[in-house]
């Protein structure tokens, strides 16, 4: 098992954000965490990433895990080009400048924005910015990818394309992934398991496993359409009860 989250609880002041959460994630598995914005999903990611310390409980990870976060949006440095942004995580690793450049070029190619390497974020569209974001996380060759609503600021067509790209990248690289989203559609497209989370304090309401291989999924795949319906119904039943913030 890659990541074991046990009895995790987290509070900020008097506000209980997460309450007694248990999740086990296998190596190479994508777990989609579904719940509306602002109900503690992002906090959970930050805890897993080690950016914050939980109030109680434990997160155990395999020894050789390299984690990287893909943020929602607006986290590119505006004064750096696409390539410069992707280079940032590598700058504090003992590798030569030449190799750094090489790896940046390779990963930009892989996410399909090699032609825009020298553009500043201002000149890039939302979709391309998100690809840069993704490239920046991938350049470290992470074994664990933590994604915080990576597609929520994009329009539907772009989201569709990026979902396919993410599926392809996963099958090429086989990383473990915690995918936080408020979109049932994204959750059933990418998750081996979809965990439906409750209102704050965050608890797991239901887990929906999806057997269809990720590479075969599409918006109209019958099994995926069925899974989407199941997830939607569960969300509705639980009234996925937390309001966006």
């Amino acid at each position: 098992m890659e990541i074991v989250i046990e009895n995790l609880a987290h509070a900020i002041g008097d506000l209980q954000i997460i309450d007694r959460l248990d999740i086990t994630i296998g190596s190479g598995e994508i777990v989609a965490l579904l719940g509306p914005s602002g109900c503690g999903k992002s906090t959970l990611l930050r805890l897993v990433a080690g950016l914050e310390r939980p109030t109680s409980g434990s997160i155990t990870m395999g020894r050789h895990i390299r984690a990287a976060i893909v943020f929602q949006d607006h986290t590119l440095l505006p004064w750096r080009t696409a390539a410069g942004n992707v280079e940032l995580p590598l700058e504090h690793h003992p590798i030569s400048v030449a190799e750094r450049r090489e790896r940046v070029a390779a990963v930009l190619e892989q996410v399909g924005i090699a032609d825009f390497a020298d553009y500043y974020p201002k000149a890039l569209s939302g979709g391309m910015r998100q690809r840069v974001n993704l490239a920046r996380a991938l350049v470290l060759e992470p074994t664990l990818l933590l994604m915080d609503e990576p597609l929520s600021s994009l329009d539907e067509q772009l989201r569709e394309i990026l979902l396919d790209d993410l599926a392809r990248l996963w099958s090429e690289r086989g990383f473990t992934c915690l995918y936080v989203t408020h979109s049932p559609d994204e959750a059933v497209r990418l998750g081996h398991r979809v965990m439906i989370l409750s209102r704050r304090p965050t608890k797991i309401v239901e887990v929906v496993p999806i057997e269809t291989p990720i590479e075969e999924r599409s918006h109209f795949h019958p099994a995926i359409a069925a899974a989407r319906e199941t997830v939607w119904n569960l969300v509705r039943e639980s009234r996925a009860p937390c309001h966006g913030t």
Partner: protein
Amino acid sequence: MKIGSIAHEAAPDSEAGSSRRTDFAFAASAPLVRPSFEPRSYPLVGWATFAVVLAAWQLVAWRQADAILLPSPIDVASALYGMMGTGELQADLGASLGRLTVGWVIGAGLGALTGFAIGLYPLARSSVLPLVNALFAIPKIALLPVFIVWLGIGELSKVTTIAVGVFSPMAIAAYSGMDAVDRNLIRMAQSFSVPTLAILRKVILPGMLPMLLTGARISGAIAIVLLVGAEMIAAENGVGALALTSGGLMRTDRLFAAVAILGALGLTASWLVGLAERALLKWR
């Protein structure tokens, strides 16, 4: 109908130029040229405006018989030329530039460092920030007599006045620039385990740079104002002293020449900041 046609002419590049009928009601309710709110400018227009002002001044000076009250631009230019020949201009300008540069560099440097400290350390924010704000509100030229008593009538008191005047706006620019840096960018860098010092250098410093340059622009103007004040109160040379003595001697051509030099100083300072902005903020 007249208004409608004017609206048409005023908007040759808008979509209304094609086939849409522009009647009176439409033109009155929705102007076709809308402000873009883009910080664009026409460089030539600046020079043209300058030329028009000069021409108007020359015209008024010709009509106005008394050259003492209003010397013409040509008089002023010849006064400038004459002072250049005797070396007075170079001496005064040199003295002023020296005070300005030393005072600004010291004040802006200390101000920026103080701003950094305020931005980084809550203790500094709690203790130093109220002082900075209090100091900001005091007219610095009122402190000149104090500095003269403490530091003597020489260069030190003038340079100190300028430095103190530049200090507060620069400190304020620095810490508010730091406050304005997007926290998400800092968190992002932390998530990639970028070391704290590198976060300062790669995220915070570039993020606060626009504000810092705005601070430089404003404090440059303040420095010139203080320079002139200080030189008028207590100096034998410098552009401010030149203006004051020329006024006292009714040599208005030289007085206007001094004022023109001050304007040129201000323009140069803002041009320098503009250069820095274009070089450092091309990503915007």
